[in-house]
């Protein structure tokens, strides 16, 4: 987090939306296609790269993921899988949303996949009323319309309110 360490070429400084700075090794940052493209297009690595859409808490998580995946050799797929599931364990919906937003913005496909899959697995067995709240969707059905759609797929609603 200290930006005072001297910048050699192997390190990048990322700045979160709330102003915290993260010093990361270049090969860790390369997990992100966005950062990779920025470095390829000759963005100076000496500069602080601002990530205005990602807060410090999320960015720390993202970088933790990147570090693990950058350091682990490809042969240890099983170990990575267990890291991934442990990584997302007990994470609340807000944090997952932030992760998806960050992974989507920074173009980290692996992280986007596991975070989105985690959201999907979580909502899979939730009643649709709850899903509305999770995604802040306004119910624009009239009660009659909703009942009609329900009736169309009655089998799917067995055991749901």
């Amino acid at each position, binding site marked *: 987090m200290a930006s005072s360490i001297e910048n050699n070429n192997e390190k990048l400084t990322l700045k979160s*939306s*709330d102003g915290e700075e993260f010093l990361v090794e270049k090969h860790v940052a390369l997990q992100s296609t966005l950062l990779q493209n920025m470095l390829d297009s000759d963005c100076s690595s000496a500069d602080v790269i601002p990530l*205005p*859409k*990602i*807060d410090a*808490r*999320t960015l720390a998580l993202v970088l933790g993921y990147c570090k693990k995946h950058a350091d682990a050799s490809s042969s240890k797929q099983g170990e990575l899988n267990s890291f991934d599931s442990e990584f997302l364990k007990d994470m609340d919906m*807000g944090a997952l*949303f*932030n992760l*998806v*937003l*960050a992974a*989507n913005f920074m173009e980290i496909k692996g992280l*986007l996949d596991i975070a*989105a*899959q985690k*959201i*999907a*697995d979580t*909502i*899979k*067995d939730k*009643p*649709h009323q709850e*899903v*509305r709240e999770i*995604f*802040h*969707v*306004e*119910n*624009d*059905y009239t009660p009659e*319309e*909703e009942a009609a*759609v*329900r*009736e*169309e*797929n009655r*089998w*799917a*609603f067995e055991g*749901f309110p």
Partner: protein
Amino acid sequence: MDAKDILGLPKTPLPLSPEKKSRPQKDSQRKPDGISREVYALTGGLAPLMPASGSRGSGGGGGGAEGPTVGAVVVLPYELVVVEVLTRLPAKSLMRFKCVSNLWRSTITQDPSFSKIHCARHSPSRAGGFFIIYPDADDSFCCFYATTLPSCSCPGDGESILVPHQFTPTASNSCSSSKCYGATDVIKGLFILYAGNRSWLCNVSMREIRELPFSSDLENAVAFIYCLGFASTGKEYKLVKLCLLPFYSTKDVISFHTKDVISFHDLIFVEEEKRKTSGLSGSRGSGSGGAKGPTVGAVVVLPYELVVVEVLTRLPAKSLMRFKCVSNLWRSTITQDPSFSKIHRARHSPSRAGGFFIIYPDADDSLRCFYATTLPSSSCPGDGESVLVPHQFTPTASNSCSSSSNNKYYGATDVVKGLFCLYAGNRSWLCNVSTREIRELPFSSDLENAVAFTYCLGFASTSKEYKLVKMCLLPFYRTKDVISFHGLIFEILTMGKDASWRRPWDIVEAPAVGLELGRTSVYIDGLLCCWHRGGYNLIVFNFQDESFQKIHPPPKSSGSIYLEDGSLLLQFGGHFALVRGLHRRLVNHELEIWVLELNKYEQGSYEWINHIIEVPCDFPVRGCSFVGSLPLPIGDQMLLTGLVEFINKKSAVPVYSFDHAKGKFEKLVIGNFPSWSPSSQVASICRKDIEKFRVYYYEEDITPLSDLVSNDKDLSLSSASCTKNNNKKKKKKKKKKKKKKKKSSRTTTLSD
């Protein structure tokens, strides 16, 4: 003196209902209404109200050409009046002069060239006025006109005269009276008044006002702002509407009132009458969540596109069917977006989710469908029975052509790429296994009397089309004991393309298609293998090019008497195969299987390869039936069950699976199939039913059937030409048929 005096019009005041008064003029001049009047004006003819009406003096009939003669009444030709005089008048006068005559009114209000010239004559430097929008005490707006504002150059002038004007839409333009709480800038003579979701377009100079359409889904939105603009290249006025749609509101608190936690469901940009409704990035595509950023404490909202592409596509079909209830937008994405179902399919490719789908014959001859999430696998046989969930496929009233509510199905095709067909005689239904959607298919009206229907579904992989094949027998004549048939009717329906069934071959021409109906056929990967009439040969039908290939049976094995009746057609490791000798007790517990290897490169060549597999002791030795093939990740499994076990079922039906990887049989107990008809008795399930018992493994596929079934009017319109051609062909064929009928009709005897 007024305009009428000057221009020599009769002084009779023009009525509010113009038709009545203009009638006498019509009589004399024969040119009042509509087009003829305009033509008259354009050709520079005389005004409709020329002296002919007689009340005012004589002469002048010659019109403008005559010139100003002293004493005589001079009448300006109408064209001159319009182009030279009227266009120079201020709007206020013109509005009054609409009352002069019908012709004038139509010129002033409806002639585009008139307004163009008028506009040019009143360009900037010329006349104009000041228009002032002033907020009133009750939050609404008042509009004022002032001809001049006290300019700074002559400040002594004092106040100018402000003339208030209330823009009130006439009853025909508007639903109800209303106050306006906002106004846009005046752009090129037009501006917008608005109050929430409703808006009115106004012309400043003409003081005309008209209500604009409103968006019905924005009834609850707040903070409406409208901005009017003019696209100079396209010469179009465009209105932009911005508003906020609250995502929740309680009785007392509406969430957006607390200013620090502003989290709006959506920020909506609506371009007047050009709302984008396309696909994933629909009108609500841009969520405010992303822009707002994940601030601690604030509610994080995923943009809709991310929700769809990243989250929804990963959900199983069952959850998706429920989540159609979340909102209209979700429903339309899930059910109507082709790219959505494509991504969904990709995410649920083989190794991922899926389930087992079981078709089981009930005692009353009809079929029941069951779902099972897992089958007890041979790897963990201790698992016992799996949970079977019955499902009744019932078409909704809107999907079904006919109203018969009691749907029983007496036949089902194989499950092909997530779809299968149920049928009962001439009627058939297409079903999606994952979404459990069902839709009736068209039926051929001339086959009402046909019997022995058999349907086979296939997928042509090159053209990526589902095709359904229908075979049946059409009785030719019928006595008490004997029915004779024309022969086999063979029809094809290409899903999403054909509006009605095609009959590619006339009965006579039908190639080697003396197909044996009612005996098991097997579908593998675009090919259908069925028995030839008489049961000695096999026919392979190719769904891609709709061709037939005749296959001769494998050579007789040494020592066995050739009796094809005991042969069973099945799928063995992705190939068609025949099992022989099932009528006899198996020797040494060995099953003789002949596998058909079709040569992919050389059309028409094939080869039979013999396999001998060992069967466990309790394998059914008589009346084996093929019930399916499971494309499990570990390797295909061939499923067989025994007739004896099937009929004498006391609890659960045993199924024997052959694991190709291990090369041996395992016994599975699929589960207990409840009979749905209460009157049914175990004994009434008989030999022929066993052929209908099928177990399938299916992959999640949420392809909506609406794309495939052309019941809808718009589809049938687009394929109308296609059906016409078909009809023509049919007619031709019918003629042929009649000629050849006598020769061709074969007789078959059916014992009831």
